[in-house]
């Protein structure tokens, strides 16, 4: 007897979000990236539409990286000494569709660059590479509230994804995203209740839920990956059941979390494998954007996504 698949019917759909604006939209990007739009759980193609595969963003910094492992450093070589060379290498050599620039050099402890410097950096970066940008602060709330509005303004109309808004510090960033036409990352500490609450707070001040990407905060393999997985799964189940406040795509900072583990640093290739496993697991739990570091890991995961979506 033929086995009948039990297919779930879902009422909700994840919002579709575009990063990057081309000339026709008032920006200057050569390509745009579309994420979200799923009407089913990850990879269950028969249960609903999955119009956009997950996308990998290459992580770069506005300064040469400080504590990156030798394996990462050797993958990029001398290009790391100049962030613009680094960005170019990601695009031209590793085919990055999207860059995630972390403004680490603005942190009070790591260079303390001014908002003016930060804005100039973003303007130059936008002129040197044509892929869409994700712009991330250094993680110092007070300083981020100064530099992110400057970066936002410098990238006006380029429809960047800017972050991260957190429960105790979101208003300045939301106002900037509203003024300059960007999308926003809402970050919660592996806590679905706070993720939901923050999305409501953001939408209450006028940025629609459709312009939010959730950063659920993840752990790498061995460091709470399954906890992040379950939070993402639960949010997705709620969203597909009709909860619009959780129907946002996910961004996962895979590279950052992987390369801080001691396992990633013990021998050749192990870090790459660690990054691949973390990324592919998160794809299974619904990740839409994967911010990655090692080009070899990014290549493997990109091939994996292609094979999953070959239909």
């Amino acid at each position, binding site marked *: 007897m033929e086995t009948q698949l039990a297919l779930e019917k879902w009422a909700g759909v994840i919002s579709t979000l575009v990063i990057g604006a081309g000339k026709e939209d008032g920006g200057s990007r050569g390509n745009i990236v579309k994420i979200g739009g799923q009407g089913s759980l990850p990879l269950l193609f028969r249960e609903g539409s999955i119009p956009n595969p997950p996308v990998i963003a290459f992580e770069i910094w506005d300064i040469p990286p400080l504590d990156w492992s030798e394996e990462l450093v050797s993958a990029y070589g001398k290009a790391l000494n100049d962030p613009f060379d680094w960005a170019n290498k990601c695009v031209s050599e590793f085919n990055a569709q999207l860059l995630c620039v972390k403004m680490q050099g603005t942190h009070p402890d790591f260079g303390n660059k001014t908002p003016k410097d930060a804005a100039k950096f973003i303007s130059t970066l936008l002129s040197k590479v044509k892929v869409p940008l994700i712009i991330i602060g250094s993680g110092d709330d007070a300083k981020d509230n100064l530099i992110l509005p400057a970066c936002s303004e410098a990238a006006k109309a380029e429809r960047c994804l800017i972050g991260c808004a957190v429960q105790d510090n979101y208003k300045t960033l939301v106002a900037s995203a509203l003024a300059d036409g960007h999308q926003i990352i809402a970050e919660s500490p592996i806590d*679905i*209740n*706070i993720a*939901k*609450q923050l999305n*409501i*707070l953001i*939408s*209450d001040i006028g940025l629609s*839920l459709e312009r939010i990407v959730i950063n659920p905060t993840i752990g790498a393999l061995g460091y709470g990956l399954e906890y992040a997985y379950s939070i993402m799964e*639960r*949010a997705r189940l*709620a969203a597909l059941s*009709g*909860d*619009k*406040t*959780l129907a946002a795509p996910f961004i996962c900072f895979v590279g950052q979390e992987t390369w801080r583990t001691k396992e990633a640093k013990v021998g050749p290739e192990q870090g790459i494998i660690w990054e691949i496993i973390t990324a592919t697991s998160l794809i299974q739990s619904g990740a839409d954007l994967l911010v990655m570091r090692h080009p070899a890991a990014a290549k493997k995961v990109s091939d994996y996504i292609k094979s999953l979506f070959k239909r």
Partner: protein
Amino acid sequence: MFIIGELINGMYANISAAIKERDKKEVQKCALDQIASGADALDVNCGPASREPLKDMPWLVEVIQEVSDKPLCLDSSKPAVIEEGLKVSRNKTIINSTTADKEKLDTLLPLANKYKSKLIGITISAKGIPQNKDQRLELAANIIDRCLSESFPIEDLYLDPIVLPVNVAQRQMRDILESIAEFKIISHPGPKTILGLSNISQGTHLRSLINRTFLTMAVAYGLDSAILDPNDKQLIDTLITAELILNKNIYCDSYLEAYRKK
């Protein structure tokens, strides 16, 4: 919870006057207010004073459809009145209601199939109102059986255990609640369940409190839908909280607002 707003009913003076004077603004305002308060569908009833229900029902339907595409719950004891409403409905519809009586089912089931309408079945019959849970279950089984034989989809059937005022039939309350849970296991897939909520508090002094307490208990027994006053904010807040406690929605500090954003 599928909330059906009860306020477009000719037994209320404003709607009765609006029907009489063909004042569509009043009806449309009532529809939009209820939707803004959380109604997923709107009950439509010409009321006992309507002299020409066959004309009033389609007028109400047309007027509401001008401002909303929410499902309409066509409410009349006369099948002919319901059919006049069905004829002009572009929105989804729910027939309110059939009893377990053969004549009612003979007329309304074919109408529900013809117009692809959902159907509310109340567990009463010409013999009267059931006095206990077993009588309710027997009538429910009769309705389900007829639906199955007419190929009506059971998921589109809403069974109402018939709520009686608490000051009239206090001893029946537990049976009514248990019926909600047991209706759902009569067949697979099971029917949905519904209550006309306000009846519970007829003739009492603390209507709103009794309504929301009973609704909370019914939700815990698995109630799917209720016809109620969505403008009673405390009632809706209580309902949202009850569903939260049953893990139907994910908690956040602004969970009341989150529900209303859905």
